[in-house]
């Protein structure tokens, strides 16, 4: 079951508890999702992800199937990164295992061939370990495809002879 959460203009800590009713009978069961919604994703700690939202949209026939991003360690100690939620059936995600203090490293999202003809909005979550502290970061990933039959090439009106 996929829970989709739109962060809108929420601020700070938000929790949602969708309720599931089945033929098992009462009581219903709940799952809980929580998030720390931030206005300034370019100033997070201990890492900053650039860009903080990944848009792998494709508006022409040229296949666009991957996107690189940078993870900046803004702390004074080495961080260890773990991928705690990936993009199943959509993409593979490559992140560095460790980043040194005040260093940066690259990551990449690569779409699976079966996802190339799909539009979606999903996300993956990275857990960052610094000493005994752990912090999670979720990166939204969006893909929009050119609408069928839509012509996105720029066209100029031909001059008309009179």
């Amino acid at each position, binding site marked *: 079951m996929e829970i989709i959460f739109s962060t809108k203009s929420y601020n700070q800590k938000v929790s949602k508890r969708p309720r599931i009713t089945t033929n098992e009978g009462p009581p219903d069961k709940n799952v809980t999702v929580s998030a*720390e919604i931030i206005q300034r994703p370019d100033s997070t700690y201990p890492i900053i992800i650039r860009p903080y939202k990944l848009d792998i949209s494709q508006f022409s026939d040229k296949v666009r199937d991957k996107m690189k991003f940078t993870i900046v360690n803004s702390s004074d100690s080495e961080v260890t990164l773990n991928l705690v939620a990936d993009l199943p059936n959509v993409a593979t995600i490559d992140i560095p295992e460790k980043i040194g203090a005040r260093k940066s490293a690259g990551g990449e999202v690569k779409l699976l061939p079966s996802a190339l003809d799909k539009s979606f909005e999903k*996300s993956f979550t990275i857990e960052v370990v610094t000493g005994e502290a752990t912090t999670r970061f979720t990166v939204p990933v969006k893909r929009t495809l050119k609408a069928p039959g839509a012509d996105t090439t720029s066209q100029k009106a031909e001059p008309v002879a009179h």
Partner: protein
Amino acid sequence: MRKLIFATLVLVAVTLAVSSGFAAPRMVIPEMEFDFGFVPQNSEISHVFWIYNRGDDTLKIEKVVPG
């Protein structure tokens, strides 16, 4: 003869009732909470929760109400 048919019908009915009474779905969700951590505003994010049926009848999800 009528008594025998009646007794057989009662036995079949009782057997069906008892067997259906024991067969039941049982929903198990190993991970019931997920923390996204820091998330930018105006984003759409998602998480997949796995639902298992550990019972002996079909589990039907009748309704999911957003929290």
